């Protein structure tokens, strides 16, 4: 298998609605909508042998209005050694995405971690609770609006480098 065959499969499977691109590190990036995710992962897992879920994480782009959040999946075909990266953009107003725990048991904690840090709601997740942070925390700390340091501090102002 290579990126071309996989791109052809994904285009056929999603009726050309997925945006596929190969980056300079030879990784196939696939941008899809949240409602296509389950169907595509199902196809990749059962027809193309992507049986290994490497990773789930998210990223926050506050300046991209309507697509503030991105959930990133890395899948791996262990037999043919092919990796693929799926990206799903989500709006802050509708931050719901179907869970992958139906396909991969191991997605459970990865999705809990993503929920914990970004507040992404994985619809259908069996146990969507915080995992690393305290249960009574009322915000999702990896969002960009939470600065690492208190912005009202003045004792660390650096007039030469602006930080």
């Amino acid at each position: 298998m290579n990126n071309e065959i996989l791109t052809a499969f994904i285009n056929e499977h999603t009726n050309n609605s997925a945006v596929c691109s190969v980056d300079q590190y030879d990784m196939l990036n696939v941008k899809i909508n949240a409602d296509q995710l389950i169907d595509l992962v199902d196809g990749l897992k059962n027809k193309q042998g992507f049986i290994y879920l490497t990773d789930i994480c998210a990223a926050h782009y506050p300046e991209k209005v309507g697509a503030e959040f991105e959930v990133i999946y890395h899948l791996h075909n262990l037999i043919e050694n092919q990796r693929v990266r799926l990206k799903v953009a989500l709006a802050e107003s509708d931050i719901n995405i179907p869970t992958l725990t139906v396909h991969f048991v191991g997605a459970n904690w990865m999705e809990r971690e993503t929920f914990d840090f970004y507040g992404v709601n994985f619809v259908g997740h069996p146990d969507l609770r915080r995992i690393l942070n305290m249960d009574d925390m009322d915000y999702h700390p990896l969002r960009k609006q939470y600065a690492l340091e208190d912005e009202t501090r003045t004792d660390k102002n650096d007039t030469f480098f602006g930080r």
Partner: protein
Amino acid sequence: MSELIIKSTGQMISTETIDGDIATLNLGPTHPATHGIFQNILKVDGERILSAEPTIGYIHRAFEKLAERRPYNQITPITDRLNYCSSPINNIGWHMTVEKLAGIEVPKRVDYMRVIVMELARIADHLVCNSVIGVDTGALTGFTYMFQEREKIYELYEEICGARLTTNLGRIGGFERDFNDIFHAKLNAFLKEFPVNFDEFDRLLTRNRIFMDRVIGAGPITAERAVEYSFSGPNLRAAGLDYDVRVMNPYSSYQDFDFSIPVGKDGDTYDRFVVRQEEIRQSLSIIRQALDKMPSGDFHANVPEFYLPPKEEVYRSMESLIYHFKIVMGETTIPAGEVYHSVEGANGELGYYLVSDGGRTPYRLHFRRPCFIYYQAYPEMIVDSVLSDAILTMSSMNVIAGELDA
């Protein structure tokens, strides 16, 4: 007869009770037998575990958030504190991620030096894990012997980077200094003495009837289930699947070395133990090959934007002064882009997903931490077994609290 049922939350519980008395047992967070800060709320009937609920995050330090404010070279000390039993692998994995993003080619010699250090770290990590399995079965002797050997590996780290546990080893582009004569002398002595002592340790446990009876069948997992849980590293290989990043996606010139990947069959504590024992031998072989074939050349790449110039040049040459200043102040820019790079950590596939917007710090950095991913199978592996097997299963899975909680 006991019966296993799977609850809607994915938890597996056993219906068996002996006399109907179910007790709740809080195993951890700080219990001497758990080797780290792990809490499991167990429902037990006598000694038999009916259900387990892990709570993690006790030493969460927000590394991914911290990394969004730190320049690239200042993130290396953070990676030390992930799997602190084998920090050099984490450090070098991170350096290679940045090099991949910045398009830096390192000399062959750096690759080989890195391989030696990473395999030393793998040996140290496996030694800790396997000797602690011995401790948990009541065999303290092997632990005391093997910790002396680990000490020698730490002395080798000291020669390369000056530190022992949290090593901050190497730099983006290579090493801070070349291997010196003391290092070579100590490494040669280690390569001569360690196999003798290690064989003694091996004889003490591997075919020991008492040890085998104790660990065979404790905490098993099938290969299918392990893949569904995204296991990696020795735990996956013990279940029978030969996935190793060093072979599958060779980095740092691992393709130049001849070594084999041991696999187990049952995925139980004994298989995990034996797989690690054999991996230690393979690592020794890799180190010997790397020493024999060590190419000549420089111990770092020629990348002045990332690699600190020698101090005496900073005082004499303008360019060195500028680069020194830019690196120390964290003003080095890096191309925008995103990259996933993984290395075979001591306990699994350690991945770095790095998104850069071209600024001085990562825009987003995610660590794919093998322990975090496979520890979620722990309840399933211990349900319907006895409490002492649960302790063994945890130590043989090599769950490191720092990596689990990041």
